[in-house]
């Protein structure tokens, strides 16, 4: 009994930081409609800034003062980010803001590395609260008790601010209809900035508060992000009480999970989320998010036409040049281009469902990594030959996509995106924690191609045919009635349903198709590397694909593979630098601000301006 209570208390204490980060994210999304991916980074910053402040500020006052100051400083950093990065892109499609915040993650990661170095920092203990108190014989840290007491106060203060003050009224009004609020004379820009300050300050506060418990390290941004999304989704986007409730549920569950089922702590969290969403698709206390029929901001997407003969000839010539690569170049180029081709197929599969179907998945790596793991597991445990494994990989990924898609497509918009992210994390945690089968962190190794294909050039041909074939198939699908049905469901689900199109089924088929193609890419990947590790299932991997799709150009047909080829190509060069994340992050932000049409879109624009391409009558 004592242990039980002690565990509940620990869970409640852990809920504090989680709640603060989640409520900040929820608040920012509610008002600005930006899903701030960098929120975990602000949390990490809070921990690092708090740590440094605690080094200089002495005693009890210094400790708590440092925490408060850390919150304020992180809030101010948030303001800088909002003004420099987000303000220029508020009018761009919502997803561009996502990509911009992802650029911020990379920049902050490298800045923290630069300033504080790579080693993990051990948080100082709170002065005066270093001991434990015994509750029914079980030791409970005094600091935990302090956190349990503090959190409701923060929650209450927030609730008061939002529901009882004028600022709160404005925030709530903006959450419902921001055009109206600005039409009523409220300075929307500063309201956004203010909310961003508050949200980031909360994240910073959360990061600093958990210092005595968890310290500070460079991975904490992504670690918390998954949990925060789960909390926000379970609690209901935009609901503070929901965020608190969900944070408590998840934290308590984690503590019990560690004791009774240490192999499944991470998995458990996502299972709970899925169960909650099965019954309440918008979270425990959330309301339906109306994405709005005018979801498409910016220039409307142009109608598509299959390529003419000239383009087809050009593509054929390009394919021949690419196909003959092993004849005129060295081993290095062959291996590099194999990697590029595989990544192109992966990105093209995401681009297909995102571009044609409007389905923004944050967890597409689940199918890439899933296909790779499926192939690797078959090889390891059933001695499956490569040829069969390459068939099984897309099949397994497709089956996973049917199940995951079926659950995720019950929701729409940002809930859908978060659900896919959560499922991605679920598969990752399965691979990571189920060490007996998947090898855990050590991955699965010795997954080599069959003897006849073991030569790099031969394997290159396998990858070449399957990847270009896959990409061409995806492209054909876009021009086929199925691609049109996807666009119909995306452009106006209302009209589509009213003309007999089962939009959910179309979307599920699209999701599955994309999953199959990603799985094929994953299968090819594992045999080209000879091994597979959980990081291929990571959220960061999903984001890689998402970013190249955006930078390649969402509203174009070739954006996916062009973006992938470009970035996989320069990555090899870029990663030789120490602070390549900083450079990549900054360039992502710059591209988002300056060239929101992506590479293909910008090239097309340029081509039309200089008269190389014909401008459609209606685009003038």
């Amino acid at each position, binding site marked *: 009994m004592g242990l039980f209570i002690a565990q509940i208390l620990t869970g409640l204490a852990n809920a504090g930081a989680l709640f603060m980060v989640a409520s900040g994210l929820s608040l920012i999304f509610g008002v600005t409609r930006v899903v701030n991916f960098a929120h975990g980074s602000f949390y990490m910053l809070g921990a690092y800034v708090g740590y440094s402040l605690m080094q200089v500020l002495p005693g009890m006052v210094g400790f708590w003062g440092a925490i408060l100051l850390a919150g304020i400083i992180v809030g101010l950093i948030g303001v800088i980010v909002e003004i420099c990065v987000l303000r220029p892109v508020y009018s761009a499609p919502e997803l561009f803001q996502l990509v911009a915040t992802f650029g911020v993650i990379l920049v902050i990661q490298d800045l923290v590395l630069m300033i504080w170095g790579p080693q993990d920092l051990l948080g100082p203990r709170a002065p005066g609260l270093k001991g434990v108190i015994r509750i029914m014989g079980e030791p409970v840290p005094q600091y935990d008790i302090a956190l349990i007491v503090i959190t409701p106060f923060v929650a209450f203060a927030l609730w008061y601010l939002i529901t009882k003050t004028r600022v709160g009224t404005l925030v709530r009004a903006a959450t419902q209809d921001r055009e109206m609020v600005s039409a009523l004379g409220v300075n929307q820009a500063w309201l956004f900035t203010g909310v961003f300050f508050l949200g980031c300050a909360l994240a910073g506060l959360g990061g600093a508060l958990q210092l005595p418990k968890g310290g500070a390290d460079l991975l904490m941004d992504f670690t918390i992000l998954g949990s925060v999304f789960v909390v926000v989704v379970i609690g209901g986007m935009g609901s503070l009480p929901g965020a608190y409730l969900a944070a408590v549920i998840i934290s308590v569950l984690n503590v019990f999970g560690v004791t009774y089922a240490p192999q499944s702590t991470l998995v458990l969290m996502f299972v709970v989320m899925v169960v909650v969403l099965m019954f309440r698709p918008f979270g425990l206390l959330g309301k339906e998010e109306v994405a709005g029929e005018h979801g498409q901001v910016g220039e409307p*997407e142009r*109608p598509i036409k299959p390529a003419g003969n000239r383009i087809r000839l050009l593509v054929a010539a390009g394919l021949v040049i690419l196909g003959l690569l092993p004849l005129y170049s060295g081993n290095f180029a062959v291996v590099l281009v194999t990697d590029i081709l595989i990544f192109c197929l992966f990105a093209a599969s995401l681009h297909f469902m995102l571009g044609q179907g409007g389905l923004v998945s944050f967890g597409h790596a689940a199918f890439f990594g899933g296909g790779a793991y499926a192939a690797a597991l078959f090889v390891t445990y059933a001695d499956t030959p490569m040829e069969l494994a390459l068939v099984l990989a897309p099949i397994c990924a497709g089956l996973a996509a049917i199940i995951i898609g079926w659950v995720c497509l019950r929701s729409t918009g940002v809930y859908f995106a978060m659900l896919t992210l959560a499922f991605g994390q679920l598969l990752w945690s399965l691979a990571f924690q189920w060490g007996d089968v998947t090898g855990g962190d050590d991955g699965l190794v010795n997954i080599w191609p069959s003897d006849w294909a073991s030569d790099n050039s031969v394997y290159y041909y396998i990858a070449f045919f399957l990847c270009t074939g896959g990409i061409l198939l995806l492209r054909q699908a876009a021009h*086929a*009635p199925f691609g049109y049905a996807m666009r119909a469901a995306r452009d106006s689900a209302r*009209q589509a349903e009213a003309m007999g*199109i089962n939009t959910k089924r179309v979307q599920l088929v699209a999701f599955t198709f994309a999953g199959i193609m990603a799985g094929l890419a994953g299968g090819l990947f594992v045999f080209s590397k000879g091994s597979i590790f959980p990081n291929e299932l990571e959220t960061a991997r999903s984001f890689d694909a998402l970013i190249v799709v955006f930078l390649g150009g969402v509203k174009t047909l070739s954006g996916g593979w062009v973006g992938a080829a470009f970035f996989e190509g320069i990555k090899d060069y870029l990663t030789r630098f120490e602070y390549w994340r900083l450079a990549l992050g900054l360039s992502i932000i710059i591209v988002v601000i300056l060239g929101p049409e992506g590479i293909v879109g910008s090239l097309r624009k340029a081509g039309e301006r200089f008269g190389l391409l014909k401008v459609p009558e209606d685009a003038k």
Partner: protein
Amino acid sequence: MSPILSVRNLSRSFGAIKAVDDVSFDLAKGELLALIGPNGAGKSTCFNMLMGQLKPSSGTVQLLGKNIAGMQPRKIWRMGVGRTFQITATYASMTVVENVQMALMSFHRKLYSLTTFAHTLYRDEALSLLDTVGMVDQAERHCAVLAYGDLKRLELAVALAHDPILLLMDEPTAGMAPRERIALMQLTADILDAKGVSVLFTEHDMDVVFSHAHRIMVLNRGQLIANGSVDEIRNNPQVQEVYLGGGTLFNAVQEDAHA
């Protein structure tokens, strides 16, 4: 002759509010039936139930003798009911003709085909539909840049694509200029007459209603208070009372329209 559409005791409550209260009516083949009423009378709720967007609390909706109440919109469409929206719903990323082709592809159950090129499918059929609504010269235009009146006409062509027996039009002329309204409704009436399609429509513009409807139903506070010919409705004191608070504005409007 048995009616195309037969609605019996249709009701829908939201909490304690009875938005639609025990509504019954029939719609004959080839009839152009208008459903009018002041704002908040329950027209949209009624329409949404007929179209499958909303489940009725009670009552039946029979289409050619088959109950369609509570069916999903796409199933109702497959049974031969077309619809247009109050606020136009078209596919902004497609051309005008592709919007119509989409409906035809759905009708011919070609949605999951991967091997054909969509832009060549049923193109001639789509063009001839566009021709009936006078949009054929704009067939290749990008839907996102069309004028609102043209979007309305496009929507009409889309709604006719599967040769419906019944067309449900929710405020077909909302948001259009007065001259355009009459023209569009005239076009609609002509087409439907030629094809023998029955129509139920809601409308706020009394010019349109009185000059085109064969019969008019008046809804107020969820209840049908009148159901009759144009003249009957125009001279019905109860209708004038709830709709306009008395006066002879209908006649004045009527004269205006002919001026």
